[in-house]
């Protein structure tokens, strides 16, 4: 589910194009957008407190062969939630698992990993070493 969360519309479309028609499904819960209260901890590790809310979209489906799939992600993309729920179900159907892995999960993971590496090296380039200067002493 963590990979499906970061997949974008282009990647879902590419996977669908590669896999051909996907199995039929019906909704157990239609895609809907709501709020999630995000929590933090005081000092990062103490008592919980509410920071503020985020928009979240969810969907719950069942495929024609009876596998349930669920999706929850930040944002308001109803179409993505439905696709993610369907693909989530397919990752648990033996006939589809490997195909979904190759057509969707692997490319998404590769893109995200590459983006992380790039960001990390950009960040690392700004690593700084500060030196403390001695003040007010005459060189002899």
């Amino acid at each position, binding site marked *: 589910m963590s990979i499906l969360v970061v997949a974008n519309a282009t990647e879902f479309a590419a996977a669908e194009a590669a896999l051909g028609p996907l199995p039929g499904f019906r909704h157990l819960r239609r895609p809907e957008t709501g709020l*999630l*209260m995000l*929590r933090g901890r005081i000092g990062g590790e103490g008592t919980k407190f509410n920071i503020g809310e985020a928009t979240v979209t969810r969907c719950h489906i069942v495929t024609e062969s009876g596998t349930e799939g669920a999706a929850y992600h930040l944002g308001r993309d109803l179409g993505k939630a439905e696709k993610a729920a369907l693909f989530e179900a397919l990752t648990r159907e033996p006939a589809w698992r490997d195909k979904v892995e190759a057509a969707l999960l692997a490319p998404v993971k590769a893109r995200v990993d590459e983006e992380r590496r790039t960001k*990390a090296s950009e960040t690392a380039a700004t690593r700084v070493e*500060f030196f403390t200067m001695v003040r007010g002493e005459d060189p002899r």
Partner: protein
Amino acid sequence: MYVAVKGGEKAIAAAHEQLSRARRGDRAFAELELAQIREQLALAVARVMSEASLYDAELAALAIKQSRGDLIEAIFLARAYRTTLPRFGESLPIATERMTIKRRISACFKDMPGGQVLGPTFDYTHRLLGEMGKAADEENVASKPGVPASCKMPGVAHLESLASDATASCPRVAKLLGNEALIEEPPSPSHARPGDITREPLGFPAERDVRLQSLARGDEGFLLGLAYSTQRGFGRTHPFAGEIRFGNVEVEFEAPELGFSVPLGEIEVTECDMVNQFRGSANAPPQFTRGYGLVFGQSERKAMSMALVDRALRARELGEEITAPAQDEEFVLSHSDNVQATGFVEHLKLPHYVDFQAELFLLRQLRREWEERHAAVTATQQPSREAAE
């Protein structure tokens, strides 16, 4: 008090038409796209998300566009939109110690474990207008996607290993002094449900969890002014920026129907751990105390102000004398919400005709009475003066 008025429908409709034209501006120029606002005015988007208390960059960008860049109006729009959505629940507390760091600095320890990374910052820029750096040159960006040229400079071949360090979990700076008990521990986790000002109205005295929620959505300018006042001596707290970090954290949610926690994606947050001097009291030994700031997006000024005001508001808990505005929780929390503040200040524009007529009537009566009294006094003084002459 204002009372309902009738009429003006045509003028109001025409004014809204005009607003819509003004919003679009000169049609000789292309209309702004939401993605442009989200990507290129990211700090305005962060402020709207933070003070609207709603994390959604697209919505914040739309609100900024609709409000013509008036950020308080944008915050108002996002708050109003929020009320139309149901709440699915509460996230697990975000784990900021597992943040994918984009920036992390400490003004206390130059050699902190995990190191300091400057990230995208205005610090150390020369503030020369028009100087936007090489990345602003589109050709340069297009020809070298990804890793900036500086990463490939000779002599910094070890950047690859540093890159993996930067994403590794960075221990909190506060932990470095923790072993000597020279710095206070954060309040220990409890299973109590944190207070929620979107569900129960703010009451006083307010607990720290409620104060932090309130400060997190507080107006940046108001909190900045209060924070500054503590530095200038109005409730002094002797602060040091123990650690400021900005980056991405995963949001996780325990969906009731699934029975396990699911990742929902990442959000950007800025966290500030302020370290403050404390002389100790009858109950507590001298040690550093802490103020905490946590806000959506990249917003260091807000996170730092929040941490300073959080610490100032702990005066009661730490047995400090309450002498300054920043220490007065009722004053701070009742006036930090800019949607409330702007609502009450700006409602003065609405028709107060009946109210004003009543005041006018009263004033005329008072004036009449005063003039009568004045005339009477003058009349009694005049004969005696004549007699004296």
